[in-house]
């Protein structure tokens, strides 16, 4: 016999119902045939022998009905009616099937059906919009790739490659006349050689002068500088064209850096000068002048460390 009240007494109020989920304010019913989802005397499908719900399967809505006459046959308890896809027609179908049923169930069925159709419409709309595809990353693969990238970076030697490419372009003349280095490298090399020989010869002359300068230090420094200047004028003429242009083209930051470089080179120069030639630490006033003359030569020998200090 079906005693709804007894059933409700047991599961609803006092003892345990496995479909019940209680929160502080509300009780919910997890039974899939429940029409409202709340745990109520009128919404409990176990405690009502005459009951109806709407359920949706793959976009199709069905009306399920349970009557007391079939309570003894659990396998055939629920009657399933397919509802039409047309909203109004489906509502009429519900009305027609649930004629003479309690108002509550009829109303709730229609409400539920409305909600279901609404969410089905939204689902169909979303599919047409942009879909975001999540691609899973494999941790191993990512780690491997990262390592490969690091190794490739080391193998690439980017700075060297870029510098080489830029120098190539300069040699090929893509820059036109902006930089007034003479285009032919071997002309330049020749000039360098000539300069070297000249500078060596001048060094010898200077040695003599330098000794004199050393002796006269206390007396007449500035006059001596002028004479030194005259010796150096030829050297300067050979170099000033490129030097001036270098300095013109430099922006402030790079000029500062160049000065730093030049200072470094100067230190190196003085060391090598001391080692190379005889006691050539003349009056500091002329070092500034001499620096310009000798800078080009020092480049030849100490290109490597200088470039290392420059590149990041």
């Amino acid at each position, binding site marked *: 016999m079906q005693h709804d009240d007894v059933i409700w007494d047991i599961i609803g109020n006092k003892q345990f119902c496995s479909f019940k989920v209680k929160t502080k304010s509300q009780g919910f019913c997890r039974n899939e045939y429940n029409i409202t989802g709340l745990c109520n005397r009128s919404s409990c499908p176990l405690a009502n022998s005459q009951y109806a719900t709407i359920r949706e399967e793959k976009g199709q809505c069905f009306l399920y009905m349970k009557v007391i006459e079939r309570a003894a046959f659990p396998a055939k308890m629920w009657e399933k009616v397919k509802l039409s896809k047309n909203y109004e027609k489906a509502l009429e179908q519900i009305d027609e099937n649930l004629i003479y049923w309690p108002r509550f169930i009829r109303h709730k069925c229609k409400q539920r059906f409305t909600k279901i159709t609404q969410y089905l419409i939204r689902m169909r709309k979303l599919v047409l919009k942009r879909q975001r595809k999540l691609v899973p990353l494999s941790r191993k693969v990512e780690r491997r790739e990262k390592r490969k990238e690091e190794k490739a*970076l080391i193998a690439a030697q980017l700075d060297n490659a870029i510098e080489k490419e830029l120098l190539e372009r300069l*040699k090929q003349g893509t820059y*036109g006349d902006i930089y007034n280095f003479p285009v032919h490298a071997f002309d330049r090399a020749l000039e360098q050689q000539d300069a070297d020989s000249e500078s060596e010869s001048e060094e010898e002359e200077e040695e003599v002068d330098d000794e004199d300068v050393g002796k006269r230090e206390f007396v007449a420094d500035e006059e001596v500088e002028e004479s030194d200047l005259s010796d150096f004028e030829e050297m300067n003429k050979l170099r000033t064209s490129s030097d001036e242009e270098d300095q013109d083209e430099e922006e402030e930051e790079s000029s500062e850096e160049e000065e730093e470089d030049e200072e470094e080179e100067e230190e190196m120069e003085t060391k090598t000068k001391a080692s190379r030639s005889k006691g050539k630490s003349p009056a500091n006033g002329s070092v500034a002048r001499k620096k310009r003359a000798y800078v080009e030569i020092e480049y030849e020998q100490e290109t490597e460390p200088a470039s290392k200090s420059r590149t990041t």
Partner: protein
Amino acid sequence: MDITEVPVSQDSTGKKKKNKKPKKKSPEGNAEGSGVEKEEEKMEKSEPGAAAFPPTFSVSEIKNKQRRHLMFMKFKQEKRKQKMQLKKKKKKEREALGDKAPPKEVPKTIENQRVFDETMVDPEDEEVAFDEGTDEFSAYFNGLTNPKVLITTSDRPRGRTVKFCEQLATVIPNAHVYYRRGLALKRVIPQCVARNFTYLMVINEDRKMPNGMVLCHLPDGPTAHFKISSVRLRKEMKRRGKDPTEHSPEVILNNFSTRLGHSIGRLFAALFPQDPQFVGRQVATFHNQRDFVFFRFHRYIFKNEKKVGIQELGPRFTLKLRSLQKGTFDSKFGEYEWVLKRHEMDACRRKFQL
């Protein structure tokens, strides 16, 4: 346990010495029965081949893990010793010969050992030249169009991505950054075409870091999808210079050697205007090494014609090509010219695609 084990191991070391000989010979391809004789020739401690182990003996057949491990270590040590001896011999020979010594051998690098790729482009290849004359970039390379780039992101970009996009926009002349607002790319593209954009660049973001880039050449050009890694923004650079100016930079493309690499190289080249302003002394580099494209942005200065100084400005990042698709962005129905298939392409360490 310990006490009893020691003599056992000693015995086994004794056995090992005998075992070593046949074991060593067998991996050296000596599977036939004459293993025993050869051992006697080779080994100094030539005990007679009384310990006649079957010639197909190898280290991996010993079931006991400890013993197997010890045997293997000994094997390795022997190998190493032989290698050192060989090296010493060679060195002595080299010193003995002095000047007449043969030149030092070139060390093997991955680039040296690269698997020959039949799609390597020959600089004088006519077919390639013809293709490039008529492909989608020909309009750019003939000077007909000026590049105009639209940079955008995926939905709701975070600060880092936004900054990255802004910096990219300063690096690429004539670039505009637009906020995405959840628009579909397929609808964005016709609008871009209508406004004469030549490039659409979409930076994809994941967990607040840019990690992907879709580069789409606009009047139905190819679409390339890259993975971005190691992004470094301007303020994270060490020893960087001032901000880049508005001058158009020069472009350097290194190592794009295969056919695919060529098309990607042209894709990058067409981002920048055809005539760089040398006054600006800025250079953007795309360097391909082992399928990773490194992007750098520098300012250079020529100190003399043998020396140039470069200073890095601008963001730096690394790209890896994931797919190249003909036509504008269409992930479902597009025709893919090349897709990264990890199992096939990553299997060999000497094989590269770009």
